């Protein structure tokens, strides 16, 4: 049973191995390089599906455990295991990287190097979702975050933001909105977050006895309350800056707008989830007292995120910025679900990670496709594209419908659960701005759909547009199918999420917090 015993490490390693192959063979160019990357991505996706299939729901807990000592002196080990959340998030990652590689088939500049970085990054993402050791978790986290700098800095597209406002003088030093600016800003803000996380991790390690970085040790250790209070804030800020938490979300619009298609898909689709996942998995679960104290603020900020992101999206004229701000808004839903500290809220938060990941992946795939053909992201200049690209228009509306929470699509299930959880929490009013945010989403998403695709046209200069083809179709249809599947039959993954939530939530709520409840 080699395959089964090493399923997780193989899943994590598959993209990495593909990256090594690409590195070792400089002659691989074009379609050949992309095929290698696709094989690596698909292998990891297959691994994720195998994990889903072999996870025993009736047993629950951590499964498919693998543990290899790395630094015994500090109790650091490569401890991989999957819980119900991991199952869902691995599936998400698998779908996004596979479709991401498919959607990037049209890339023709240094594609080998691009794919190497992309695959390494994805290995990091997989690693985060299955790590049971905080040190390794953090290591994978950094592997996932850092390649972004190069991916955006080298392959990104240029934008420009007008110099205005009280801080217009900064434009003297850097070009706000440019791709190097975006790459640098994203990296610096996320690294600032990482620095905060590192401080909290080290503090937790020593407060828990300084013997092990294992989740089982750190979770349920008797941390002093005062330490929990500041450490939670560090983790909230640190992971939250990747999760798009207000006001540390501003890297996201610039970053996602500048990033090439596959990178936007991965970043908004999966990487931002790492941030929210970190807040829940490390922040809330390991520091329950800190969570209990800060949760009202986390929830209030999340609500602000939802409304703020949606209102900002309303005013954008750049297609990618609209989608990027919608990510900020939807990540607010995830954080809101987390802050409710209810079963439904947590189920909804994780489900929203999956649903939003696929939805935004679809959005960025479509937007990238439009940009690739129209060479413009400027919405007021577009119109009537549906005549030339009816398929793209259809799927854009579908993604929009999922984002505004139409029943039958994945977004509805997630948002419904989160709002249900919010109303059960101590802060019922959270649900109201959340629902209003969903309405504002309907306004901006369908409006941009109309402005770009419907009406007369296409305008001058856009006569040569064509619909999606080949691999692009594969990516779009696969993502759309996932949205429908998850909307019609949510229990497909919700059962797994629910299983893990049932085990984890009591740790935070304090009832039965023994620290061993999650040991296999």
């Amino acid at each position, binding site marked *: 049973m080699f395959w089964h015993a090493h399923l997780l490490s193989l899943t994590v390693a598959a993209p990495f191995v593909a990256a090594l192959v690409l590195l070792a063979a400089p002659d691989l160019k074009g379609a050949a390089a992309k095929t290698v990357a696709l094989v690596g991505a698909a292998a990891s996706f297959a691994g994720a599906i195998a994990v889903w299939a072999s996870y025993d729901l009736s047993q629950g807990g951590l499964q498919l455990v693998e543990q290899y000592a790395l630094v015994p002196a500090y109790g650091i080990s490569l401890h991989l295991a999957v819980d119900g959340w991991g199952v869902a998030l691995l599936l998400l990652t698998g779908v996004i990287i596979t479709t991401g590689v498919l959607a990037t088939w049209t890339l023709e500049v240094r594609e080998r190097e691009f794919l190497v970085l992309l695959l390494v990054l994805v290995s990091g993402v997989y690693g985060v979702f299955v790590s049971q050791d905080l040190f390794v978790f953090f290591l994978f986290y950094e592997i996932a975050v850092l390649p972004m700098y190069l991916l955006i800095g080298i392959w990104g597209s240029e934008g420009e*933001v007008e110099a*205005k*406002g*009280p*801080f*217009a003088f*900064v434009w003297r*030093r*850097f070009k706000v909105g440019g791709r190097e600016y975006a790459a640098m*800003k994203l990296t*610096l*803000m996320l690294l600032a977050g990482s620095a905060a996380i590192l401080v909290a991790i080290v503090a937790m390690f020593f407060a828990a006895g300084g013997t092990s970085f294992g989740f089982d040790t750190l979770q349920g250790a008797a941390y002093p309350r005062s330490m929990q209070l500041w450490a939670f804030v560090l983790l909230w800020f640190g992971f939250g800056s990747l999760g798009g938490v*207000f*006001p540390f979300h*501003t890297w996201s619009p610039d970053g996602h707008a500048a990033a090439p298609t596959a990178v936007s898909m991965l970043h908004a689709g999966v990487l931002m989830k790492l941030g929210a996942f970190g807040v829940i998995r490390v922040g809330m679960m390991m520091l329950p007292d800190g969570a209990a104290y800060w949760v009202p603020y986390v929830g209030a900020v999340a609500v602000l995120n939802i409304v*703020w992101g949606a*209102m*900002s*999206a*309303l*005013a*954008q004229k750049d297609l990618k910025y609209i989608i990027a701000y919608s990510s900020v808004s939807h990540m607010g839903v995830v954080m809101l679900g987390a802050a409710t500290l*209810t*079963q*439904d809220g947590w*189920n909804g938060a994780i489900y929203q990670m999956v649903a939003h990941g696929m939805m935004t992946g679809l959005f960025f795939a479509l937007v990238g496709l439009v940009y690739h053909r129209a060479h413009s992201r400027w919405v007021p200049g577009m119109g*009537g594209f549906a*005549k030339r690209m009816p398929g793209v228009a259809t799927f854009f509306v579908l993604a929009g*419908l999922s984002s505004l929470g*139409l*029943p*039958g699509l994945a977004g*509805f299930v997630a948002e*419904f*659960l989160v*709002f*249900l959880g919010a*109303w*059960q929490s101590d802060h*019922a009013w959270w*649900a*109201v701005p959340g*629902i*209003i945010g*969903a*309405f*504002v989403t*309907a*306004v901006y998403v*369908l409006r941009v759909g*109309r402005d770009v*695709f*419907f*009406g007369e046209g296409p305008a001058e200069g856009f006569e040569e547009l064509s619909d999606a083809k080949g691999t692009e179709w594969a990516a779009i249809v696969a993502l759309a199918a996932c949205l429908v599947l998850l909307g019609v039959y*949510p*229990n497909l993954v*919700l059962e797994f999420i*629910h299983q893990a*939530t*049932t085990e984890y939530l009591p740790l935070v709520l304090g009832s039965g917090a023994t620290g061993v409840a999650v040991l296999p």
Partner: protein
Amino acid sequence: MDTLTPLQWASLALFGPLVVALVLGVVWPLRKAGGPAAGLSLLGATVNLAAASVLFVGWLGGADTVRATLPWLIHGGPEGASMIELGLHLDGISVSMLWVVAIVAFCVQVFSLGYLSDEPKAGFGRYFTWQSLFLFSMNSLVLAPNLLQLFMGWELVGLCSYLLIGFWFKKPSAARAALKAFWVTKFADMGLLLGLIVLFVHTGGFEWTATTAAAGTVTLLFFLAVMGKSAQFPLHIWLPDAMEGPTPVSALLHAATMVAAGVFLVVRAQPLFAQAPLTGEVMTWVGAFTALFAASVAVVQTDIKKVLAYSTCSQLGYMIAALGSGAVLGGYFHLTTHAFFKALLFLAAGGLIHAVHSNELSHMGGLLKRLPVTGWTFIIGALALAGFPGFSGFFSKDLILEGLFDAGAYGPLAMLLIGAFLTAFYMGRVVFMALLGPPSEHAEHAHEAGGAMTLPLVLLATLALGLGFFAGPMARLYGLTYHFHLGAVGITATALGLAGIGTAWIMFGPKQGLQGLAAAFAPLGRVARSGAVDKGFALAYRQALLGLGAGVAWVDRYIVDGLINVMGYASLAFGDRLRAVQTGNVRDYVYAVVAGLLLLGAFGAIVQG
């Protein structure tokens, strides 16, 4: 045929159209072929109609409630996990609505074959795909075993409405109208969603039979959604614009079935609404006001579809007012009769429009001679709407007015009575302007369309004419009893209706009398056509929502992000200053090293000493 159980029939009714929609959605060559797609869709509608009829006959015979559910979504609470369920619920209310929807949908699809025959093939296929999707959505709403599924169907029919209004999406006005309809209803739907959440948290389920102290809040929130969906003042603004869609769509969605979903929700959730007297009060007044307001706006419209659209708002107002005052039978029976005669009116109007290629009343005239079937069926529909004795609308409207009288709601009753006069008046106006009188030049070459467009009219006209006599069996379906009884209120309403027709005859008949009266009301017409409510909403949208959005975006970009940029700027500026330390002169570095060494030594000496 007896081998199938009611549940199997209902599944057939529900999933038949879904399968058609999926096949047409996925197999694009079939969809783009046009005709075959229409055939398949019609097959789905036929299966749906057959199944619905079987069920309807069964329930007329007094079948028991049948319910079947499947687990759908895990809900976890403090007391453990449970399943939120979806499924089918068959009782008199759902089965009769199912049947109404099935008939109208079938007629509309048949009519569309003729009406849209000039469309490109791909568009034709797309139209029927969405028609099938709508049928599935509406059925899932109607057959919902709990309010959550009703909400899901509710949103899906909203989607279909968006798609079908925007069917001619290359027309900017259609694209805009589709968005407007979706936004307004979506805005209202926030109430339903929030209401469902409140209901769930209080009762642990989505059952309409629940008893809860929060019924007042829940039903008020529900009513917000009802106002959106059933186009009640001031959320009625989307309905007239929705006429941008093809006329058969207006007949099916925006007259007979989808807009009635709001009323259906109130009927369905009657046990909940019954616990909330305040909500009832609000509904009665809002409904009555809408009935009067929309009727008076309908009087001055020049576009035949706009007249009918405002008329729909007005008639829905009657239903809402009835349900608010507890006249459940009246409200629901009027929903049924209205579905038939309003669908008939829209389809017949579609026939007229098709013949003269214009929506304007002034472009019609004298069409009764040229399109006798369409014309006469239109007149039947108009008489039913006007509440002419013997027609179906007469019975249902009488029930509503009697109900309000019994409830002691005299204010709303007065509004509805004036509304009854106006209704007869504007329908008379349309009939006299479009069907009688001298033909306009557009109408010269008008001729009757083929059987696809006339047969549905005849079927619907039969129902509009005859359904009133089946009020008794229908009442039994809802678990109520009906006795015909014409009281003072009924007689007054009938007299007012006849007066309305008479006034219209005087003003718009051959004599063209009372023009002074028309002139006196001209300012009212200008006000009504100016769309003050519409402008208010446009202002709220542009100034408030978009303005706020622009403000937030500006703050986000130039203040929130600006501060982040300032941090970057400050680091760079600080580095600039610090750079001066690096002189590049080796000796300066050596001095620094030596100075550091001395400082360290001094520090050590102090610490040691």
